[in-house]
């Protein structure tokens, strides 16, 4: 009996002890939040950085670009993250949010790019698409004689006689994927905007029409199993697949990519934003935390070092399209000067 009592009291005591000992803590681990697209690259850098033994391995949370910036801009102090990753540029409204919470000084690093490709088997006919044709092939509704109707196109050649006379079948990422978001925005919506009919759409209609993919079987959601898509594309020359550039590069011996608006997805063209479906990746450093949390500047230095992002860097092995030499030089000077990002820089 008494044993039970002592056991209960000790549990209760331990509980209350744990409850009151919430310290205001100093932190020696870098906290990073942000985009799930940058996550696979940032984790590799973080692990290498920790492996050198000078600083603990940073902690990384994959919150999405918007979510990351929101948490990042919450304030200054060790309870807030030091760095956020983003697969798009920070918005003026987010800089405002940061400012209103006292996060006045942030530095932006552009860390390279990623491109979305439309690939097919090497044996298939090579396609040279415009974004408009891409939208006409995959949009849920397309304009015919001035009216928006359900997509009537069955074959690529129905859209333009220069395209192959083959059924439109495209495998692509599911709606949960960031690649799909970018594809919808930069591919479909951009293609839709080239149509004169799109200008007449009301704003809410615009997003609904220009960013929806058809659901009549011409577009197949393929999940995230990359290897499966490769096998399917190689086996069927009528199939096209949408995925990240790194994946095309890995299977360059078996796959080819369609030209978009006449531009081929080549690393240099993606890095310079010439390819229409290229997107840049960034990370933002909270300057007030440098010196408070150890290792922030060193982590940034590791990320943009030639060992990581150079032409033979380890991030290239993971599939990053590394910046050009000039861009890398700009980054190095940025690291030394740590310039503040202002709303004017975004224009």
């Amino acid at each position, binding site marked *: *009996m008494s044993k*039970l*009592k002592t056991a*209960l009291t000790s*549990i*209760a005591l*331990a*509980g209350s002890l*744990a*409850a009151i000992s*919430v*310290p*205001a*803590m100093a*932190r020696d*681990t870098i*906290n990073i939040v942000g985009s799930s697209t940058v*996550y*696979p690259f940032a*984790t*590799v850098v*973080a*692990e290498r950085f*920790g*492996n*050198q033994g000078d600083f*603990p*391995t940073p*902690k*990384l*949370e*994959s919150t999405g670009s918007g979510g990351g910036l929101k948490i990042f801009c919450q304030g200054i102090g*060790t*309870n807030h*993250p030091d760095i956020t990753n983003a697969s798009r540029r920070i918005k003026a409204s987010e800089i405002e949010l940061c400012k209103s919470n006292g996060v006045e000084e942030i530095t932006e690093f552009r860390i390279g790019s990623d491109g979305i490709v439309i690939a097919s088997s090497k044996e298939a006919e090579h396609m040279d698409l415009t974004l408009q044709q891409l939208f006409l092939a995959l949009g849920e509704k397309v304009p015919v004689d001035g009216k928006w109707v359900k997509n009537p196109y069955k074959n690529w050649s129905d859209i333009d006689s220069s395209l192959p006379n083959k059924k439109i079948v495209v495998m692509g990422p599911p709606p949960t994927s960031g690649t799909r978001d970018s594809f919808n925005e930069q591919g479909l919506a951009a293609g839709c905007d080239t149509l004169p009919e799109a200008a007449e759409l009301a704003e809410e209609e615009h997003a609904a029409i220009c960013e929806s993919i058809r659901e009549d079987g011409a577009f197949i959601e393929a999940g*995230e199993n*990359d*290897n499966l898509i*490769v*096998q399917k594309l190689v086996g069927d020359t009528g199939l096209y697949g949408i995925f990240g550039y790194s994946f095309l590069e*890995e299977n360059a011996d078996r796959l080819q990519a369609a030209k978009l608006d006449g531009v081929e997805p080549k690393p240099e063209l993606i890095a310079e934003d010439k390819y229409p479906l290229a997107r840049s990746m960034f990370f933002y450093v909270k300057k007030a935390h440098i010196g408070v949390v150890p290792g922030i500047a060193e982590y940034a230095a590791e990320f943009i070092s030639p060992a990581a992002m150079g032409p033979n860097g*380890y991030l290239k*092995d993971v599939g990053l399209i590394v910046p050009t030499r000039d861009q890398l030089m700009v980054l190095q000077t940025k690291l030394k000067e740590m310039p503040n990002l202002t709303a004017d820089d975004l224009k």
Partner: protein
Amino acid sequence: MIDPKKQAEIVHKSLKKRYRKEKRFRAYGILAITIALASLIVLFADIINKGHTGFLKTTITLDVEMNAETMYLEDPTDPDAVRMADFVEPLIQSLSEILPEATEEDRGKLRGLINPYASSQLRDELVANPDWMGTTQTITFLAHSNVDVYNKHKGNEAYSIKLSEEQQQYVDKLRDKGVIETSFNDVFFTSGDSRDPARAGVLGAIVGSLLVMFVTLVLSFPIGVAAAIYLEEFAPRNRITDFIEVNINNLAAVPSIIFGLLGLAVFINLFGMPRSVPFVGGLVLTLMTLPTIIISSRAAIKSVPPSIREAAEGVGASKMQVVLHHVLPLAMPGMLTGSIIGMAQALGETAPLLLIGMVAFIVEIPEGFFDAATVLPVQVFLWAGSPELAFIERASAAIMVLLAFLLSMNALAIWLRKRLERRW
């Protein structure tokens, strides 16, 4: 009035139908159980089938020549010199001695066979043993994860996709020579997360889970039991207690993500506690398990026969003595079972932890309640979403570890009940 003879006839006629009905009803029951069991077996078979290879690792054992010239390193005790030294070259040289057919252009392919972190292992070992300089040492390294999956799934084309044909031949040859070996994957149980599947382990997640569970247990058990005792034994029956009871029952059915939102708003944003720490995770899971513990504890107290209370009161025990000396010990097994099942539920929870930042890439093993940590189900979630093939088997292996934890917790609950329970 119906004639009894006729009535008997009607009953007799319908008898067959009733028996048939009963048989059918039983068949439905058996069918339901078979479906449940079959899906369970399919699930387990799939997990074990995919995951058993996760408990194996592939290693490469090399004779590494610690040559100052090839490594650009004179003095391994000088940290700056170590930083500039080349630890990849000696590994590739050693490999190309075993594989003389590999030409100068194939060096990149050879490099793709060794784990990307093998060079840091060599560095650390050399720094620990500076007298190795100038000697040749036999060291075992992890293989690259592509080699790992290829080696473990011989003949399955899906697993060889990442290696070129030459590389596959190299691996086959190295295995025949005994340079590449498969052994029990101790790395999996002794290290934290990693982006390299070959180096990834569940220890960080296990420690994180234990820390979170400790906080949850220490908070939710006493609070839950105290609340149950008060509500059952002391509280007056009125509208307020009815209201509380309805709310507790409701809370037990609230989706767990809501508790995560609450934790984010209250503990992190209001109290300013750090993100991603086991303490906050434990607090959130405490909120989630409390209703379960209170409900099961109340049921356990209710099931103590009133005769025991009356007997105790009859010999002059006070209300408090009745509860502490008689009711509580008898209700304890039921309370413990309820708590353990509640804890097991909390152990498998990811959704509320997502919002308080415990879904994160954390390499270091947490050492306290305020170190960034992740838990087992989150680790499974993170690995299952990784593109590398080798992570799929790691994820399945982690599921098996999680299941082992859940099974042992449930077994403990059954054992405690069997041992402590008293029947009347």
